[in-house]
């Protein structure tokens, strides 16, 4: 009998953050102007363009980005979510070799067989490319001011949703199932006060880290508001 998937939820309501903010003593690096987020900006950049979890990605811009806006985190679905189509792709690549043992195209003239095999490989390339594009360009971005969800639903249909950090009400990370627990990926749900009420960062790596990072961003925004440093 399969085990119940373990769900771990980390929830940080905004009201609790506000209370914490009022009561806490700010660390000296924050008091002296170099906030934790500012320190993150000085951290090393993730250089791998295929990374599913990129801190300060280099040479990356998005369409609705402000000139002064900086991408702090860029996340994609965990690489494990690509396993299915990758396996299908590998099977498609080796399938023509089985024609030597199961000659299902033997009734066709050789020129038809050749074109059939070439077309099969082109279909395989198209399948792999399509799935890669879907994974690579569906991203979740956290900048110093906003969270952005970039979705491509079909061949040429896209949706970009954005919400300001200070409109975030609730942040929840959900990790359920053996694979998600083993490889540390899950869904981060973000409730906002904006037009789009809920953002979901689906199957992203290190969901707990993302939640903590967003927590930090929210506190930073609250601090900026109190100091009057609003952009």
């Amino acid at each position, binding site marked *: 009998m399969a085990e119940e998937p373990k769900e771990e939820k980390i929830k940080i309501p905004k009201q609790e953050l506000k209370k914490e903010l009022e009561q806490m003593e700010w660390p000296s690096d924050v008091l002296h102007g170099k906030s934790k987020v500012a320190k993150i900006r000085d951290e090393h950049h993730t250089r791998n363009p295929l990374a599913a979890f990129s801190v300060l990605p280099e*040479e990356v811009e998005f369409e609705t980005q402000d000139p002064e806006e900086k991408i702090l985190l860029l996340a994609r679905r965990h690489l494990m979510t690509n396993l299915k189509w990758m396996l299908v792709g590998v099977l498609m690549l080796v399938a023509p070799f089985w024609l030597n043992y199961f000659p299902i195209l033997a009734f066709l003239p050789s020129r038809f067989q050749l074109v059939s095999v070439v*077309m099969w490989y082109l279909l395989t*390339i198209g399948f792999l490319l399509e799935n890669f594009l879907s994974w690579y360009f569906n991203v979740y971005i956290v900048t110093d001011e906003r969270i952005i969800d970039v979705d491509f639903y079909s061949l040429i249909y896209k949706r970009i949703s954005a919400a300001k950090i200070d409109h975030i009400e609730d942040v929840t990370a959900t990790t359920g199932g053996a694979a998600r627990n083993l490889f540390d990926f899950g869904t981060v749900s973000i409730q906002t006060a904006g037009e789009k009420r809920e953002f979901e960062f689906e199957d992203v790596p290190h969901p707990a880290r993302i939640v903590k990072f967003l927590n930090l961003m929210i506190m930073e925004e609250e601090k900026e508001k109190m100091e009057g440093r609003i952009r």
Partner: protein
Amino acid sequence: MDGMPLDSLISGFSISSVWGIAKGFYLLGIGIYLIFAMVMIRQVQLMSNTLNGTLNLPLKLVAWVHLGLVVGVFLLALAAL
């Protein structure tokens, strides 16, 4: 009694016309895939404009090479089948 119309139809139906019809279907299938390859070019362009990164140029190249290969196969099928 004269031969049935169907008999004359079947007797007039040679092997070459069967493979001619098969060629037509192949060209139709490759033509449809050619349209898909062209849409993929547009898709990569749209995606690259939305998220500009270091892999955009290689991906555009792969999409164009893919389109080129499909065109090549179409011409091959046209000439060789």
